[in-house]
């Protein structure tokens, strides 16, 4: 009997849902989107269960194997990213149910575009699964373009104030993808195949492969918003509708980073990359400091959270420095993946909480938050829990990830990296507390008695309260309960050795 193609199902289910939503009224589309979110989650759960028990496996799309067809490759790393996408995705769907239910103002568009919202969101979800599960370089390009175009359209749904941000985002994402495609062309020209698993052993260090890696790394760093290529991110992420902000900051940037990581480890093991890795490490350090400082200077909640993403993405690149050494590589790569997952959950929760707060207050200025914190208890608790994850305090998932990064830094004998990882946590604490300070500060005297003190806020739907809180709890649980995901990560491990007994939780 032929095995049911679960990896394909994880891509096909949201895609089918998207097609259905495109031709339906908004009310029906919300139902279809909820059902296909649930079905996707089930498919991904089965997929995880299968990889857990059977190990990494290759699945040929439609029965056509590589090189003619497209192979899907499900190993621990891919599965962990897919699981992150699905967990965050389910909560984004739940949040969106409330967010798009009543559409009073311009930011929440008319009923037609709400049906369109579900369609676009499910397409982006499906394409992200495609990126994570595909082992074909060109297929990854197509999926990246689908994610990019879908994300731009979603940002533009926020209305006139987001148009420029959406346009800049479109130019950036197209440019990044083309640089990646240039690399794909050079690889195909040199070795005549596109399958990542097959390319790894045969690609040599030639001029063509070095140019290919450079072009792809530049394009993907642009899409991942590595400082100094981050200039497009804050406006796009902060001006998008709330669930879209969460989607972009938590998931979309991780997809391009994941491709970079796969190329780095799977496709180009033959090229000596030590110098480039130190450069990426330095840029990551700059990102952490610059992003955090900028976050502190913002006076809008969503802008602060967006700059925090710039800072947190720095950690993903800082880890390249210890990963360039033999001693630190294995632990550093584990730390990077775990950080990506932990940040995905925490940042998703934080943007959803910020969206709930902004919806309740009418805008997301810090000045309008003053003294109204007690009316916003649930979203603020979610925000604080997510903040714990970003700071890397125990017992959150961020703590586990940072602990792995610190271990890698110690093994690689790079005290600067250890310092940066620690200091970044302190900076994150500063900007998280800035938000909490404004929420619980007394209203400005004078205007206090009428607007601030009574501080009536608009009632927000229950789903918008529940989704960020639950997701924040998941982000914390990733620390308490880190053994299973780390075990999953070690299945079919593409990099270095598995975590040693002393490092296993």
């Amino acid at each position, binding site marked *: 009997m032929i095995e049911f193609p679960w990896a394909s199902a994880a891509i096909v289910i949201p895609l089918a849902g998207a097609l259905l939503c495109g031709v339906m009224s908004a009310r029906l589309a919300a139902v279809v989107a909820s059902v296909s979110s649930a079905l996707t989650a089930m498919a991904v759960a089965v997929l995880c269960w299968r990889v857990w028990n059977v190990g990494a496996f290759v699945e040929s799309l439609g029965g056509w194997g590589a090189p003619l067809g497209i192979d899907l490759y499900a190993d621990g790393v891919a599965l962990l990213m897919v699981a992150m996408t699905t967990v965050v995705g389910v909560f984004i769907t739940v949040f969106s149910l409330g967010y798009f239910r009543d559409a009073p103002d311009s930011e929440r568009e008319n009923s037609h575009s709400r049906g369109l919202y579900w369609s676009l969101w499910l397409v982006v979800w499906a394409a992200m699964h495609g990126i994570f599960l595909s082992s074909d370089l*060109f297929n990854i*390009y*197509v999926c990246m*373009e689908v994610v*990019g*175009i879908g994300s*731009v*359209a979603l940002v*533009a749904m926020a209305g*006139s104030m987001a*148009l*420029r941000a*959406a*346009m*800049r985002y*479109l*130019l950036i994402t*197209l*440019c990044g993808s*083309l640089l990646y*495609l*240039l690399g*794909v*062309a*050079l690889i*195909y*020209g040199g070795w*005549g195949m596109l399958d990542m698993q097959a390319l790894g052993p045969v690609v040599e260090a030639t001029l063509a492969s070095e140019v290919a890696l450079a072009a792809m790394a530049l394009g993907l760093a642009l899409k991942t918003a590595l400082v100094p290529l981050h200039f497009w991110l804050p406006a796009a992420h902060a001006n998008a509708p709330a669930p879209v902000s969460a989607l972009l900051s938590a998931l979309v940037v991780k997809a391009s980073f994941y491709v970079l990581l796969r190329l780095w480890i799977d496709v180009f093991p033959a090229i000596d990359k030590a110098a480039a890795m130190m450069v990426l490490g330095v840029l990551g350090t700059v990102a952490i400091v610059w992003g955090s400082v900028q976050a502190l200077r913002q006076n809008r909640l969503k802008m602060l959270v967006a700059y925090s993403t710039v800072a947190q993405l720095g950690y993903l690149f800082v880890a390249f420095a210890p990963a360039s050494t033999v001693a630190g590589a294995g632990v550093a790569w584990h730390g990077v993946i775990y950080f990506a997952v932990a940040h995905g959950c925490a940042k998703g929760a934080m943007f959803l909480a910020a969206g709930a707060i902004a919806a309740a207050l009418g805008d997301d200025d810090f000045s309008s938050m003053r003294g109204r914190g007690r009316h916003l208890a649930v979203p603020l608790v979610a925000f604080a829990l997510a903040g714990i994850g970003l700071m890397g305090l125990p017992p959150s998932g961020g703590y586990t990830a940072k602990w792995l990064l610190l271990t890698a830094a110690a093994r690689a004998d790079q005290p600067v990296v250890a310092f940066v990882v620690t200091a970044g946590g302190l900076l994150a604490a500063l900007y998280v507390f800035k938000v909490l300070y404004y929420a619980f500060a007394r209203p400005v005297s004078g205007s206090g008695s009428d607007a601030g003190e009574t501080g009536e806020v608009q009632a927000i739907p229950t789903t918008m309260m529940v989704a960020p809180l639950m997701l924040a709890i998941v982000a914390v649980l990733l620390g308490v309960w880190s053994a299973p995901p780390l075990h999953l990560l070690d299945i079919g491990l593409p990099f270095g050795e598995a975590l040693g007994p002393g490092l296993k939780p």
Partner: protein
Amino acid sequence: MTTEMIYSATSTGLIGLGFYALLVRRHLIRRLMAINIMGTGVFILFVSLSARGDGELDPVPQAMVLTGIVVAVSATALGLVLIRRIHAVTGSTRLTPGAVVSDEDEL
């Protein structure tokens, strides 16, 4: 050999030209065109790859270029719609609201 060099040189030239224009130009339609020129450069590289080696043409790069063209058309359409909306809302065709310039400069 010479054919291959002509293709590579054309492709490199187009990619460089597009990238330069993307960075330097301010008018959004020009920037979108710059992206398209970059894309064409990459597609030419792909097309030239199918003629490599002796014997029959390799169809895979051509299939990839076809897919790439579909992607480029969709992206360009989305870009043009966005530019029209930006122009309708702000009256400008730039990303940064700058000083008013002459029509010639605007282009």
